[in-house]
């Protein structure tokens, strides 16, 4: 088993329950323990099953894809959506989910 970090910058603190720790108004963090070989896609599928708000706002349980209005970074680096789902998690990896934003 390995530990990874999931950080949501989506102002979802109270919705997510006690498993998530609030870092600030917008940031919530979960330290998760997963089996070796788990992919990012599989992890978020599990999170969506366990935490309904994630299934509603972050990761679509039907399509097993991130919702269209979020973007993801992996170890604080931008990552192609086509690369992220199959990425196998390693010890200490961090996945951050942020709202998509454009214009201004």
């Amino acid at each position: 088993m390995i530990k990874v970090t999931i950080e949501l910058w989506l102002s979802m603190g109270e919705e997510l329950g006690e498993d998530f720790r609030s870092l600030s108004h917008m940031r919530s963090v979960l330290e998760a323990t997963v089996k070796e070989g788990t992919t990012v896609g599989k992890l978020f599928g599990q999170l969506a099953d366990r935490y309904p708000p994630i299934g509603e706002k972050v990761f679509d349980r039907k399509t097993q894809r991130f919702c269209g209005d979020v973007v993801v970074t992996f170890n604080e680096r931008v990552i192609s959506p086509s690369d992220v789902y199959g990425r196998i998690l390693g010890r200490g990896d961090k996945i951050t989910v942020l709202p998509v934003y454009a214009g201004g």
Partner: protein
Amino acid sequence: MAEMEGYVGRILRVDLSTGKIWTEELDKSTAEKWVGGVGLGAKYLYEEVPPGVKWSDPENRLIWTSGPLAGSGVSGAATFNVMAKGPMTNLAGASQANGFFGAYIKFSGFDGIIFQGISSHLVYLLVQGGKAEIRDARHLRGKDVWEVEDTLRSELGVKERDVSIFGIGPAGENKVLYSAIVGDRGHLAAHNGLGAVMASKNLKAVVAYNGERNFGIYDAERLREKNKEVFEAAKTFGVIYEWGTGGGFSALYGIGALPIRNYTTNIYPEHERMNGQYLRTHFTIRSKPCYQCRIAHVKEVTVTEGPYKGFVGEEPEYELLAALGPVIGNTDLGAVVMLTREVDRLGMDCNEAAWTIGWTMECYEKGVFTQKETDGLDLSWGNVEAVRELLARIARREGYLGNLLAEGVMRASQQVGGEAADWAVYARKGVTPRTHDHRGQDRWYELFDTCLTNTSTIEATWAGVHPKFVDLEEPSDSFSHEQVSTFNARYSGIRQFDDCVGTCRLAAPNPKLVLECLNAVTGWNWTLEDAFALGRRVINQLRVFNFRHGMKAEDEMPSTRYGSIPGDGPAEGVNIMGKWPWMVENYYRLMGWDAKTGKPLPETLRNLGLGELVKDL
């Protein structure tokens, strides 16, 4: 003439050289071809400003046009478009402002105003009840835009919402090339120096009166239904309803898209004390919505902490938070509120101002500028009081630096030359992007669009956000050169449609709902395809205008720094420029333009109802 629902049916013409004022009918075929806003602006600009006319010539037109939805009751629909040949690019310039004017100008009797000529002295225009009057404005010389509003309201004996006033500040009067047209307490038509065009005509302000709706609505019940849907869509459109446009500030930081210290770094740990969430949970805010806007994202704010505690100003939009925060190395949110008021009241585009000052600060840090060039100003990163003073000097074109920076960052950096010429962030047509870091891969849509768009020099795609609004598939890989270029071409047109109808993109973010409102107001039966075609007609009309006025395809690219590779942060090492030529050629082909020259092909123009332009290329 027969009544056209959604339209007053009259365009006001003002010749400032002769003082002549007259009206023209807006006929049905023109309305159906160009609709309003940027569409009507494109029509009149093309027809009336031939090649060889300079931005400051009397022959240049300054075209203010509303749209059929403005004043109709659609949430926030009071947007108007300003169009002219702009001084930053010496090409077509279009910019939209919200507030009240787009509705009030119709209530005052006109769908738009076209200015030509140059007044012999400073004047303002008053429009009310289907009539217009040119009035002396010499007593307003030197006043900032807030003072102009206060003075005119007092002289006219009207309350705040009795009139809408847009005008220019000291920056415009002194022909700062990126001066803006500002009104209704903080709304701006900011891009491409349209304030300088207004100043060149000796026109200080325009006043339009509130009044009764004076145009028909085809299906009022259907409009009410759709307007509810517009509001529901706006409430769930990202973070804006709850946190304002500043709600996306940290999200952009997280993907390396927040512009920090003139693109010299992507590290800014203070971002959570500078975002919309922090502002709305720590400062005191009060709603100041635009005309009939239900989301009311515009706020007045009182600073509650730090050196500017007690300062009251408008809540900075995202662009201002970034422009007057990280771009200039500032980490005090209260100072952003203070500088927002400064840049707005002086009447400048915050984007160009910030990139210009950010570049200057980098030059100061690296010794290109010393206190000799700055006339004693310490332009270290984050010195907000020095920035306040520098803004005032730019607005007055005072001293070496004030005059240099009034030209904008492209011209200033080219004049200074050497290595510093490569540090400036701009699109090579002559203006700067929004205050984003577009280099990170998830921003490539906007970088590409900023360099290639023709309606203005601001991006028009919204970065691939919500393509399903208009029945487009989301790109499976927004980090793909091929997909970004292809997506931008497919998306092209729909935001120009928005800019024709008189709605706000934040209050009415879903173009399909906007289209349904348009049909309810006008009685038309337009499809999404028609909406795209309108937008593409505008794009192509202005592209032909731009080629005739000297645009070169090789200028459709970013400056060295704008297209550089981030050295740190979430997007470290990504490089868009390696495949830039391929992206451009692909985009040209998909747009129906010659793959090498970028000129619209004859069949493209004919298909859009622009066959008469073929001979002009």
